[in-house]
Protein backbone atom coordinates (compact mmCIF):
# COMPACT_ATOMS: atom_id res chain seq x y z
CA UNK A 1 0.00 0.00 0.00
CA UNK A 2 1.36 3.44 -0.87
CA UNK A 3 1.90 6.01 1.83
CA UNK A 4 -0.77 8.70 1.69
CA UNK A 5 0.26 10.79 4.67
CA UNK A 6 3.87 11.33 5.56
CA UNK A 7 4.77 13.26 8.69
CA UNK A 8 8.48 13.89 9.14
CA UNK A 9 10.07 15.17 12.29
CA UNK A 10 7.15 17.47 13.07
CA UNK A 11 7.63 19.87 15.93
CA UNK A 12 5.17 22.30 17.37
CA UNK A 13 5.85 24.79 20.11
CA UNK A 14 2.94 26.98 21.18
CA UNK A 15 3.34 30.70 21.76
CA UNK A 16 3.94 30.11 25.48
CA UNK A 17 6.96 27.97 24.58
CA UNK A 18 5.30 24.66 25.39
CA UNK A 19 6.44 21.98 22.98
CA UNK A 20 3.34 19.92 22.20
CA UNK A 21 4.95 17.86 19.42
CA UNK A 22 8.52 16.76 19.81
CA UNK A 23 9.58 15.51 16.42
CA UNK A 24 6.73 13.28 15.29
CA UNK A 25 7.26 10.79 12.48
CA UNK A 26 4.24 8.99 11.12
CA UNK A 27 3.48 7.27 7.85
CA UNK A 28 -0.11 6.36 7.02
CA UNK A 29 -0.92 3.89 4.32
CA UNK A 30 -3.71 4.49 1.87
CA UNK A 31 -6.96 2.85 2.89
CA UNK A 32 -6.02 1.95 6.45
CA UNK A 33 -7.58 2.91 9.75
CA UNK A 34 -5.02 4.13 12.21
CA UNK A 35 -6.05 4.70 15.78
CA UNK A 36 -3.90 7.18 17.59
CA UNK A 37 -4.13 6.34 21.22
CA UNK A 38 -2.95 8.65 23.93
CA UNK A 39 -3.90 10.26 27.24
CA UNK A 40 -5.31 13.78 27.42
CA UNK A 41 -2.71 16.36 26.54
CA UNK A 42 -0.59 13.90 24.58
CA UNK A 43 -0.66 16.10 21.49
CA UNK A 44 -3.25 14.27 19.39
CA UNK A 45 -5.29 17.35 18.56
CA UNK A 46 -2.16 19.40 18.00
CA UNK A 47 -0.89 16.83 15.52
CA UNK A 48 -4.16 16.82 13.60
CA UNK A 49 -4.49 20.61 13.70
CA UNK A 50 -1.00 21.03 12.34
CA UNK A 51 -1.53 18.58 9.50
CA UNK A 52 -4.84 20.27 8.62
CA UNK A 53 -3.46 23.81 8.63
CA UNK A 54 -5.24 25.09 11.73
CA UNK A 55 -2.02 25.62 13.61
CA UNK A 56 1.37 26.24 12.07
CA UNK A 57 4.23 23.81 12.56
CA UNK A 58 7.44 25.01 14.16
CA UNK A 59 9.48 22.69 11.97
CA UNK A 60 9.26 19.44 10.06
CA UNK A 61 7.35 18.46 6.97
CA UNK A 62 4.00 16.91 6.12
CA UNK A 63 2.92 15.64 2.73
CA UNK A 64 -0.46 14.30 1.65
CA UNK A 65 -0.27 12.05 -1.41
CA UNK A 66 3.04 13.74 -2.16
CA UNK A 67 1.71 17.30 -1.78
CA UNK A 68 3.46 19.44 0.79
CA UNK A 69 0.89 20.98 3.18
CA UNK A 70 2.61 24.37 3.08
CA UNK A 71 3.94 24.80 -0.45
CA UNK A 72 1.14 22.93 -2.13
CA UNK A 73 -1.62 23.61 0.39
CA UNK A 74 -4.48 23.57 -2.07
CA UNK A 75 -3.80 20.10 -3.41
CA UNK A 76 -2.99 18.78 0.06
CA UNK A 77 -6.03 20.23 1.82
CA UNK A 78 -8.42 19.15 -0.91
CA UNK A 79 -7.58 15.57 0.02
CA UNK A 80 -8.15 16.02 3.74
CA UNK A 81 -11.36 15.97 5.75
CA UNK A 82 -11.42 16.92 9.41
CA UNK A 83 -13.92 16.11 12.13
CA UNK A 84 -12.77 18.22 15.06
CA UNK A 85 -12.89 17.22 18.70
CA UNK A 86 -15.09 20.13 19.70
CA UNK A 87 -18.57 20.42 18.26
CA UNK A 88 -18.11 23.66 16.35
CA UNK A 89 -21.27 24.43 14.43
CA UNK A 90 -23.40 27.47 13.85
CA UNK A 91 -26.57 26.89 15.89
CA UNK A 92 -28.92 28.62 13.48
CA UNK A 93 -27.71 26.99 10.29
CA UNK A 94 -29.63 24.16 8.72
CA UNK A 95 -28.11 20.75 8.30
CA UNK A 96 -28.13 20.50 4.53
CA UNK A 97 -27.05 24.06 3.87
CA UNK A 98 -24.08 23.83 6.21
CA UNK A 99 -22.96 20.57 4.55
CA UNK A 100 -23.41 22.14 1.13
CA UNK A 101 -21.32 25.09 2.26
CA UNK A 102 -18.45 22.81 3.27
CA UNK A 103 -18.34 21.27 -0.18
CA UNK A 104 -18.26 24.67 -1.86
CA UNK A 105 -15.57 25.93 0.49
CA UNK A 106 -13.33 23.14 -0.70
CA UNK A 107 -13.86 24.27 -4.28
CA UNK A 108 -16.06 21.41 -5.42
CA UNK A 109 -19.06 22.01 -7.66
CA UNK A 110 -22.45 21.55 -6.02
CA UNK A 111 -23.63 17.93 -6.02
CA UNK A 112 -27.04 17.56 -4.36
CA UNK A 113 -27.14 13.82 -5.02
CA UNK A 114 -23.88 13.29 -3.19
CA UNK A 115 -24.98 15.45 -0.27
CA UNK A 116 -28.16 13.38 -0.06
CA UNK A 117 -26.15 10.16 -0.08
CA UNK A 118 -23.90 11.40 2.73
CA UNK A 119 -26.83 12.63 4.81
CA UNK A 120 -28.62 9.32 4.36
CA UNK A 121 -25.51 7.35 5.21
CA UNK A 122 -25.25 9.29 8.46
CA UNK A 123 -29.00 9.02 9.19
CA UNK A 124 -29.35 12.77 8.90
CA UNK A 125 -31.63 12.90 5.90
CA UNK A 126 -34.76 13.30 8.01
CA UNK A 127 -33.12 16.22 9.77
CA UNK A 128 -31.82 17.92 6.65
CA UNK A 129 -33.89 21.05 7.11
CA UNK A 130 -33.53 21.27 10.86
CA UNK A 131 -31.44 23.88 12.56
CA UNK A 132 -28.28 22.61 14.21
CA UNK A 133 -29.49 23.74 17.63
CA UNK A 134 -32.46 21.38 17.33
CA UNK A 135 -30.19 18.33 17.12
CA UNK A 136 -28.87 16.07 19.85
CA UNK A 137 -25.16 15.93 20.60
CA UNK A 138 -24.71 12.74 18.63
CA UNK A 139 -26.52 14.19 15.64
CA UNK A 140 -24.31 17.24 15.75
CA UNK A 141 -21.26 15.04 15.58
CA UNK A 142 -22.74 13.34 12.55
CA UNK A 143 -23.22 16.74 10.95
CA UNK A 144 -19.54 17.42 11.52
CA UNK A 145 -18.73 14.14 9.80
CA UNK A 146 -21.05 14.99 6.92
CA UNK A 147 -19.35 18.35 6.53
CA UNK A 148 -15.95 16.69 6.49
CA UNK A 149 -17.08 14.17 3.89
CA UNK A 150 -18.86 16.66 1.65
CA UNK A 151 -15.79 17.35 -0.46
CA UNK A 152 -14.96 13.66 -0.86
CA UNK A 153 -11.67 13.61 1.04
CA UNK A 154 -9.31 10.67 0.70
CA UNK A 155 -7.96 11.08 4.20
CA UNK A 156 -10.31 11.64 7.10
CA UNK A 157 -9.23 12.76 10.55
CA UNK A 158 -11.61 12.01 13.38
CA UNK A 159 -10.52 13.66 16.59
CA UNK A 160 -12.04 11.71 19.48
CA UNK A 161 -15.28 11.01 17.65
CA UNK A 162 -16.73 9.00 20.50
CA UNK A 163 -15.58 11.02 23.50
CA UNK A 164 -18.56 11.51 25.77
CA UNK A 165 -21.08 9.73 23.57
CA UNK A 166 -23.25 6.85 24.72
CA UNK A 167 -22.54 3.22 23.92
CA UNK A 168 -25.10 3.01 21.15
CA UNK A 169 -23.76 6.02 19.33
CA UNK A 170 -20.25 4.69 19.71
CA UNK A 171 -21.29 1.50 17.92
CA UNK A 172 -22.91 3.60 15.19
CA UNK A 173 -19.74 5.58 14.82
CA UNK A 174 -17.67 2.43 14.45
CA UNK A 175 -20.12 1.26 11.81
CA UNK A 176 -19.75 4.53 9.93
CA UNK A 177 -15.97 4.29 10.08
CA UNK A 178 -16.05 0.75 8.73
CA UNK A 179 -18.30 1.87 5.89
CA UNK A 180 -15.97 4.73 5.00
CA UNK A 181 -13.08 2.34 4.92
CA UNK A 182 -15.00 0.20 2.45
CA UNK A 183 -15.35 3.30 0.30
CA UNK A 184 -11.56 3.55 0.29
CA UNK A 185 -11.15 6.46 2.70
CA UNK A 186 -8.02 6.46 4.83
CA UNK A 187 -8.94 7.16 8.43
CA UNK A 188 -6.91 8.47 11.30
CA UNK A 189 -8.84 8.62 14.51
CA UNK A 190 -7.70 9.64 17.93
CA UNK A 191 -9.09 8.18 21.06
CA UNK A 192 -8.23 7.47 24.60
CA UNK A 193 -10.46 4.43 24.71
CA UNK A 194 -8.39 1.32 24.21
CA UNK A 195 -11.41 -0.82 23.29
CA UNK A 196 -12.14 1.60 20.50
CA UNK A 197 -8.70 1.18 18.98
CA UNK A 198 -9.06 -2.59 19.37
CA UNK A 199 -12.47 -2.59 17.77
CA UNK A 200 -11.85 -0.69 14.57
CA UNK A 201 -8.20 0.01 13.82
CA UNK A 202 -5.86 -1.72 11.39
CA UNK A 203 -2.88 -0.20 13.09
CA UNK A 204 -2.47 1.41 16.45
CA UNK A 205 -0.20 4.31 17.25
CA UNK A 206 0.54 5.34 20.78
CA UNK A 207 1.34 8.95 21.52
CA UNK A 208 2.28 10.51 24.84
CA UNK A 209 3.83 13.84 25.77
CA UNK A 210 4.27 14.87 22.16
CA UNK A 211 6.04 11.74 21.01
CA UNK A 212 4.90 8.70 19.09
CA UNK A 213 5.97 5.77 21.22
CA UNK A 214 4.90 3.01 18.89
CA UNK A 215 2.98 2.31 15.72
CA UNK A 216 2.14 -1.29 15.16
CA UNK A 217 -0.21 -3.55 13.32
CA UNK A 218 -3.16 -4.18 15.61
CA UNK A 219 -3.11 -7.95 15.12
CA UNK A 220 0.55 -8.14 16.05
CA UNK A 221 0.05 -5.88 18.98
CA UNK A 222 -2.91 -7.90 20.17
CA UNK A 223 -0.98 -11.11 19.78
CA UNK A 224 1.77 -9.65 21.84
CA UNK A 225 -0.73 -8.67 24.42
CA UNK A 226 -3.29 -11.37 23.98
CA UNK A 227 -1.47 -13.51 26.51
CA UNK A 228 -3.39 -14.51 29.55
CA UNK A 229 -2.22 -16.07 32.76
CA UNK A 230 -4.11 -18.66 34.73
CA UNK A 231 -3.08 -19.00 38.34
CA UNK A 232 -3.98 -22.32 39.87
CA UNK A 233 -3.74 -21.95 43.64
CA UNK A 234 -2.99 -25.08 45.59
CA UNK A 235 -4.04 -26.12 49.07
CA UNK A 236 -0.57 -27.41 49.82
CA UNK A 237 2.78 -25.95 48.99
CA UNK A 238 4.93 -27.88 46.49
CA UNK A 239 8.64 -27.64 45.75
CA UNK A 240 8.54 -28.30 42.06
CA UNK A 241 6.12 -28.94 39.23
CA UNK A 242 5.23 -32.67 39.00
CA UNK A 243 6.99 -34.25 36.01
CA UNK A 244 3.71 -35.17 34.34
CA UNK A 245 2.78 -31.47 34.11
CA UNK A 246 6.06 -29.95 32.98
CA UNK A 247 5.75 -27.65 29.98
CA UNK A 248 7.09 -24.31 28.78
CA UNK A 249 3.84 -22.64 29.51
CA UNK A 250 3.71 -23.60 33.14
CA UNK A 251 5.76 -22.31 36.03
CA UNK A 252 5.58 -22.33 39.77
CA UNK A 253 5.10 -19.11 41.70
CA UNK A 254 7.77 -17.86 44.07
CA UNK A 255 6.57 -19.60 47.22
CA UNK A 256 5.28 -22.76 45.62
CA UNK A 257 1.60 -22.21 46.40
CA UNK A 258 0.39 -21.77 42.84
CA UNK A 259 0.98 -22.91 39.29
CA UNK A 260 1.00 -20.18 36.67
CA UNK A 261 -0.06 -21.15 33.20
CA UNK A 262 0.40 -18.75 30.27
CA UNK A 263 -1.84 -19.18 27.25
CA UNK A 264 -3.06 -17.37 24.21
CA UNK A 265 -6.71 -16.37 24.46
CA UNK A 266 -6.95 -16.22 20.71
CA UNK A 267 -5.81 -19.73 19.93
CA UNK A 268 -8.45 -22.37 19.39
CA UNK A 269 -7.24 -24.55 22.22
CA UNK A 270 -6.13 -22.82 25.32
CA UNK A 271 -5.19 -26.10 26.98
CA UNK A 272 -6.94 -25.15 30.17
CA UNK A 273 -9.19 -28.19 30.41
CA UNK A 274 -6.27 -30.48 29.80
CA UNK A 275 -4.16 -28.71 32.37
CA UNK A 276 -6.83 -28.84 35.04
CA UNK A 277 -7.46 -32.54 34.55
CA UNK A 278 -3.75 -33.23 34.65
CA UNK A 279 -3.39 -31.20 37.81
CA UNK A 280 -6.10 -33.32 39.40
CA UNK A 281 -4.50 -36.50 38.07
CA UNK A 282 -1.21 -35.47 39.64
CA UNK A 283 -2.97 -35.48 42.98
CA UNK A 284 -2.86 -31.74 43.58
CA UNK A 285 -5.87 -30.09 45.20
CA UNK A 286 -6.99 -26.71 43.98
CA UNK A 287 -8.04 -23.97 46.35
CA UNK A 288 -8.81 -21.33 43.75
CA UNK A 289 -8.29 -20.31 40.13
CA UNK A 290 -7.51 -16.76 38.97
CA UNK A 291 -6.97 -15.37 35.46
CA UNK A 292 -5.10 -12.27 34.47
CA UNK A 293 -4.86 -10.63 31.08
CA UNK A 294 -2.00 -8.51 29.85
CA UNK A 295 -3.94 -5.97 27.82
CA UNK A 296 -3.32 -3.09 25.51
CA UNK A 297 -3.91 -1.09 28.60
CA UNK A 298 -0.90 -2.64 30.36
CA UNK A 299 1.36 -2.03 27.42
CA UNK A 300 -0.02 1.44 27.07
CA UNK A 301 0.55 2.25 30.71
CA UNK A 302 4.06 0.77 30.56
CA UNK A 303 4.95 2.76 27.48
CA UNK A 304 3.55 5.98 28.80
CA UNK A 305 5.44 5.58 32.06
CA UNK A 306 8.65 4.84 30.19
CA UNK A 307 7.95 8.06 28.32
CA UNK A 308 7.45 9.92 31.60
CA UNK A 309 10.66 8.60 33.06
CA UNK A 310 12.69 9.61 30.03
Amino acid at each position, binding site marked *: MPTILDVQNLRKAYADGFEALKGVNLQIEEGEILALLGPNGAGKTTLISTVCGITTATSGSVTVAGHDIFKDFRAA*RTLIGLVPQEINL*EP*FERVRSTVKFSRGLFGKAADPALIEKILRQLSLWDKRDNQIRELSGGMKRRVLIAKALAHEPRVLFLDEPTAGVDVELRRDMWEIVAELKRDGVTIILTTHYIEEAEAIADRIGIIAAGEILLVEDKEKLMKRMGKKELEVQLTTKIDEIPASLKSDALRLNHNGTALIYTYDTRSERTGITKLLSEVAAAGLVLSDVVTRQSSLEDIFVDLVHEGDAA
Partner: protein
Amino acid sequence: MNWTAIKSIYVFEMARFFRTMAQSFISPVLSTSLYFVVFGAAIGSRIDQVEGVSYGAFIVPGLIMLSVITQSISNASFGIYFPKFIGTIFELLSAPVNFLEIVMGYVGAAATKALFIGVIILFTAFLFVDFEIQHPLAMVGFLVLTCISFALMGFIIGIWAGNFEQLQLVPLLIVTPLVFLGGSFYSISMLQPVWQVISHFNPVVYLISGFRWSFFGTADVPIGISLLAIAGFTGLCLAVIWWIFRTGWRIRE
Protein backbone atom coordinates in the same frame (compact mmCIF):
# COMPACT_ATOMS: atom_id res chain seq x y z
CA MET B 1 -8.46 31.30 -7.63
CA ASN B 2 -10.95 29.10 -5.84
CA TRP B 3 -14.04 30.90 -7.17
CA THR B 4 -16.37 28.21 -5.90
CA ALA B 5 -15.14 28.84 -2.37
CA ILE B 6 -15.53 32.60 -2.69
CA LYS B 7 -19.06 32.13 -3.96
CA SER B 8 -19.88 29.68 -1.16
CA ILE B 9 -18.73 32.06 1.54
CA TYR B 10 -20.54 34.95 -0.12
CA VAL B 11 -23.81 33.07 -0.56
CA PHE B 12 -23.64 31.68 2.97
CA GLU B 13 -23.11 35.11 4.48
CA MET B 14 -25.82 36.69 2.35
CA ALA B 15 -28.24 33.97 3.43
CA ARG B 16 -27.66 35.00 7.03
CA PHE B 17 -28.51 38.57 6.02
CA PHE B 18 -31.70 37.65 4.18
CA ARG B 19 -32.88 35.55 7.11
CA THR B 20 -32.85 38.64 9.26
CA MET B 21 -33.70 41.06 6.49
CA ALA B 22 -36.46 42.89 8.27
CA GLN B 23 -34.24 43.64 11.26
CA SER B 24 -31.37 44.58 8.98
CA PHE B 25 -33.45 47.23 7.25
CA ILE B 26 -35.80 48.55 9.86
CA SER B 27 -33.20 49.99 12.16
CA PRO B 28 -31.23 52.06 9.59
CA VAL B 29 -34.40 53.23 7.88
CA LEU B 30 -35.93 54.28 11.18
CA SER B 31 -32.85 56.12 12.40
CA THR B 32 -32.43 57.90 9.07
CA SER B 33 -36.04 59.01 9.16
CA LEU B 34 -35.47 60.36 12.64
CA TYR B 35 -32.43 62.28 11.45
CA PHE B 36 -34.51 63.84 8.72
CA VAL B 37 -37.21 64.80 11.14
CA VAL B 38 -34.80 66.25 13.71
CA PHE B 39 -32.08 67.73 11.54
CA GLY B 40 -33.88 68.29 8.28
CA ALA B 41 -37.21 69.61 9.51
CA ALA B 42 -36.55 71.04 12.97
CA ILE B 43 -33.07 72.45 12.55
CA GLY B 44 -33.15 72.76 8.76
CA SER B 45 -36.01 75.20 8.92
CA ARG B 46 -33.68 77.59 10.74
CA ILE B 47 -30.81 77.12 8.32
CA ASP B 48 -31.30 78.60 4.91
CA GLN B 49 -29.11 76.82 2.48
CA VAL B 50 -25.72 75.24 2.56
CA GLU B 51 -23.62 75.63 -0.57
CA GLY B 52 -26.70 76.33 -2.62
CA VAL B 53 -28.82 73.33 -1.49
CA SER B 54 -31.50 73.11 1.14
CA TYR B 55 -30.20 71.78 4.46
CA GLY B 56 -32.49 68.77 4.27
CA ALA B 57 -30.96 67.74 0.94
CA PHE B 58 -27.45 68.70 2.06
CA ILE B 59 -27.39 66.09 4.84
CA VAL B 60 -28.55 63.24 2.57
CA PRO B 61 -25.08 62.14 1.38
CA GLY B 62 -23.70 62.39 4.92
CA LEU B 63 -26.56 60.32 6.33
CA ILE B 64 -26.05 57.65 3.71
CA MET B 65 -22.33 57.57 4.44
CA LEU B 66 -22.96 57.38 8.16
CA SER B 67 -25.13 54.28 7.76
CA VAL B 68 -23.02 52.68 5.07
CA ILE B 69 -19.78 53.07 7.03
CA THR B 70 -21.31 51.79 10.27
CA GLN B 71 -22.99 48.88 8.49
CA SER B 72 -19.88 47.89 6.51
CA ILE B 73 -17.80 47.77 9.64
CA SER B 74 -20.31 45.97 11.82
CA ASN B 75 -21.25 43.42 9.13
CA ALA B 76 -17.69 42.53 8.26
CA SER B 77 -16.35 42.53 11.81
CA PHE B 78 -19.20 40.37 13.05
CA GLY B 79 -18.99 38.13 9.97
CA ILE B 80 -15.45 37.02 10.70
CA TYR B 81 -15.57 37.37 14.50
CA PHE B 82 -18.53 35.02 14.81
CA PRO B 83 -16.77 31.91 13.33
CA LYS B 84 -13.78 32.73 15.50
CA PHE B 85 -16.01 32.98 18.55
CA ILE B 86 -17.96 29.76 18.02
CA GLY B 87 -15.00 27.86 16.59
CA THR B 88 -16.24 27.22 13.05
CA ILE B 89 -13.20 29.09 11.77
CA PHE B 90 -11.36 25.76 11.84
CA GLU B 91 -13.11 24.95 8.59
CA LEU B 92 -11.87 28.08 6.84
CA LEU B 93 -8.35 27.46 8.05
CA SER B 94 -8.34 23.87 6.88
CA ALA B 95 -9.92 24.60 3.48
CA PRO B 96 -7.93 25.03 0.27
CA VAL B 97 -8.48 28.78 0.21
CA ASN B 98 -6.02 31.65 0.51
CA PHE B 99 -6.42 34.95 2.30
CA LEU B 100 -7.68 36.79 -0.74
CA GLU B 101 -10.49 34.31 -1.26
CA ILE B 102 -11.62 34.45 2.36
CA VAL B 103 -11.55 38.24 2.27
CA MET B 104 -13.43 38.39 -1.02
CA GLY B 105 -16.16 36.17 0.37
CA TYR B 106 -16.62 37.88 3.72
CA VAL B 107 -15.88 41.45 2.71
CA GLY B 108 -17.87 41.07 -0.50
CA ALA B 109 -20.93 39.96 1.46
CA ALA B 110 -20.53 42.63 4.15
CA ALA B 111 -20.10 45.34 1.51
CA THR B 112 -23.15 44.12 -0.41
CA LYS B 113 -25.34 44.27 2.68
CA ALA B 114 -24.13 47.79 3.45
CA LEU B 115 -24.78 48.78 -0.15
CA PHE B 116 -28.35 47.48 0.08
CA ILE B 117 -28.92 49.59 3.15
CA GLY B 118 -27.31 52.63 1.53
CA VAL B 119 -29.67 52.36 -1.40
CA ILE B 120 -32.69 51.92 0.86
CA ILE B 121 -31.73 55.05 2.77
CA LEU B 122 -31.35 56.95 -0.47
CA PHE B 123 -34.91 56.03 -1.37
CA THR B 124 -36.11 56.89 2.11
CA ALA B 125 -34.50 60.30 1.66
CA PHE B 126 -36.53 60.91 -1.47
CA LEU B 127 -39.64 60.63 0.68
CA PHE B 128 -38.51 63.54 2.84
CA VAL B 129 -36.68 65.94 0.55
CA ASP B 130 -36.38 66.89 -3.11
CA PHE B 131 -32.98 66.59 -4.72
CA GLU B 132 -31.25 65.43 -7.86
CA ILE B 133 -28.08 63.45 -8.26
CA GLN B 134 -25.78 65.27 -10.65
CA HIS B 135 -23.20 62.52 -11.13
CA PRO B 136 -25.03 59.22 -10.59
CA LEU B 137 -22.16 57.05 -11.81
CA ALA B 138 -19.67 58.74 -9.51
CA MET B 139 -22.22 58.44 -6.72
CA VAL B 140 -22.48 54.68 -7.18
CA GLY B 141 -18.70 54.41 -7.48
CA PHE B 142 -18.13 56.26 -4.20
CA LEU B 143 -20.78 54.23 -2.46
CA VAL B 144 -19.33 50.90 -3.60
CA LEU B 145 -15.76 51.91 -2.74
CA THR B 146 -16.82 53.10 0.69
CA CYS B 147 -18.66 49.85 1.37
CA ILE B 148 -15.63 47.79 0.35
CA SER B 149 -13.00 49.81 2.17
CA PHE B 150 -14.88 49.98 5.45
CA ALA B 151 -15.84 46.32 5.20
CA LEU B 152 -12.11 45.62 4.91
CA MET B 153 -11.55 47.67 8.02
CA GLY B 154 -14.36 45.80 9.77
CA PHE B 155 -12.75 42.50 8.79
CA ILE B 156 -9.53 43.60 10.50
CA ILE B 157 -11.46 44.64 13.62
CA GLY B 158 -13.24 41.26 13.66
CA ILE B 159 -9.96 39.39 13.56
CA TRP B 160 -8.35 41.63 16.14
CA ALA B 161 -11.26 41.54 18.60
CA GLY B 162 -10.89 39.11 21.47
CA ASN B 163 -14.41 39.64 22.79
CA PHE B 164 -17.69 41.32 21.97
CA GLU B 165 -16.77 44.53 23.83
CA GLN B 166 -13.70 45.00 21.68
CA LEU B 167 -15.81 44.32 18.64
CA GLN B 168 -17.95 47.35 19.54
CA LEU B 169 -15.09 49.47 20.81
CA VAL B 170 -13.40 50.64 17.61
CA PRO B 171 -16.59 51.62 15.81
CA LEU B 172 -17.83 53.40 18.92
CA LEU B 173 -14.66 55.21 19.92
CA ILE B 174 -13.09 55.94 16.56
CA VAL B 175 -15.42 55.53 13.65
CA THR B 176 -18.58 57.21 14.93
CA PRO B 177 -16.74 60.40 16.02
CA LEU B 178 -14.82 60.52 12.74
CA VAL B 179 -18.03 60.18 10.76
CA PHE B 180 -19.95 62.74 12.81
CA LEU B 181 -17.03 65.17 12.63
CA GLY B 182 -16.47 64.34 8.98
CA GLY B 183 -19.02 66.81 7.73
CA SER B 184 -22.08 64.57 7.64
CA PHE B 185 -24.27 67.37 8.90
CA TYR B 186 -22.30 70.47 7.95
CA SER B 187 -19.87 71.83 5.43
CA ILE B 188 -16.26 72.03 6.55
CA SER B 189 -16.24 75.62 5.30
CA MET B 190 -18.73 76.46 8.08
CA LEU B 191 -16.09 75.73 10.72
CA GLN B 192 -13.48 78.06 12.22
CA PRO B 193 -10.14 77.98 10.36
CA VAL B 194 -8.41 75.91 13.09
CA TRP B 195 -11.06 73.25 12.91
CA GLN B 196 -10.94 73.27 9.15
CA VAL B 197 -7.24 72.37 9.31
CA ILE B 198 -7.85 69.69 11.91
CA SER B 199 -10.68 68.28 9.82
CA HIS B 200 -8.30 67.59 6.99
CA PHE B 201 -6.69 64.87 9.11
CA ASN B 202 -10.01 63.09 9.23
CA PRO B 203 -10.16 60.61 6.34
CA VAL B 204 -13.96 60.54 6.41
CA VAL B 205 -14.03 64.22 5.40
CA TYR B 206 -12.63 63.25 1.99
CA LEU B 207 -15.19 60.54 1.56
CA ILE B 208 -18.22 62.58 2.47
CA SER B 209 -16.95 65.52 0.46
CA GLY B 210 -16.48 63.37 -2.63
CA PHE B 211 -19.81 61.70 -2.13
CA ARG B 212 -21.58 65.03 -1.72
CA TRP B 213 -19.90 66.30 -4.87
CA SER B 214 -21.51 63.45 -6.81
CA PHE B 215 -24.89 64.70 -5.59
CA PHE B 216 -24.59 68.49 -5.80
CA GLY B 217 -21.39 69.21 -7.70
CA THR B 218 -19.83 71.07 -4.76
CA ALA B 219 -17.13 69.73 -2.46
CA ASP B 220 -15.02 70.67 0.56
CA VAL B 221 -11.92 69.12 -0.98
CA PRO B 222 -11.00 68.46 -4.63
CA ILE B 223 -12.61 65.32 -5.95
CA GLY B 224 -9.25 63.84 -7.07
CA ILE B 225 -7.96 64.01 -3.52
CA SER B 226 -11.13 62.33 -2.27
CA LEU B 227 -10.54 59.47 -4.67
CA LEU B 228 -6.90 59.22 -3.69
CA ALA B 229 -7.81 59.15 -0.01
CA ILE B 230 -10.26 56.30 -0.36
CA ALA B 231 -7.90 54.34 -2.63
CA GLY B 232 -5.11 54.80 -0.10
CA PHE B 233 -7.36 53.68 2.75
CA THR B 234 -8.44 50.57 0.83
CA GLY B 235 -4.82 49.76 0.03
CA LEU B 236 -3.82 50.13 3.66
CA CYS B 237 -6.59 47.79 4.85
CA LEU B 238 -5.63 45.21 2.22
CA ALA B 239 -2.00 45.36 3.28
CA VAL B 240 -2.92 44.81 6.92
CA ILE B 241 -5.13 41.85 6.01
CA TRP B 242 -2.40 40.35 3.87
CA TRP B 243 -0.02 40.61 6.81
CA ILE B 244 -2.60 39.03 9.16
CA PHE B 245 -2.92 35.94 7.00
CA ARG B 246 0.79 35.85 6.35
CA THR B 247 1.57 35.68 10.04
CA GLY B 248 -1.63 34.02 11.22
CA TRP B 249 -2.00 36.84 13.75
CA ARG B 250 -4.94 36.15 16.08
CA ILE B 251 -6.22 33.32 13.91
CA ARG B 252 -3.60 30.57 13.78
CA GLU B 253 -1.73 29.43 16.84
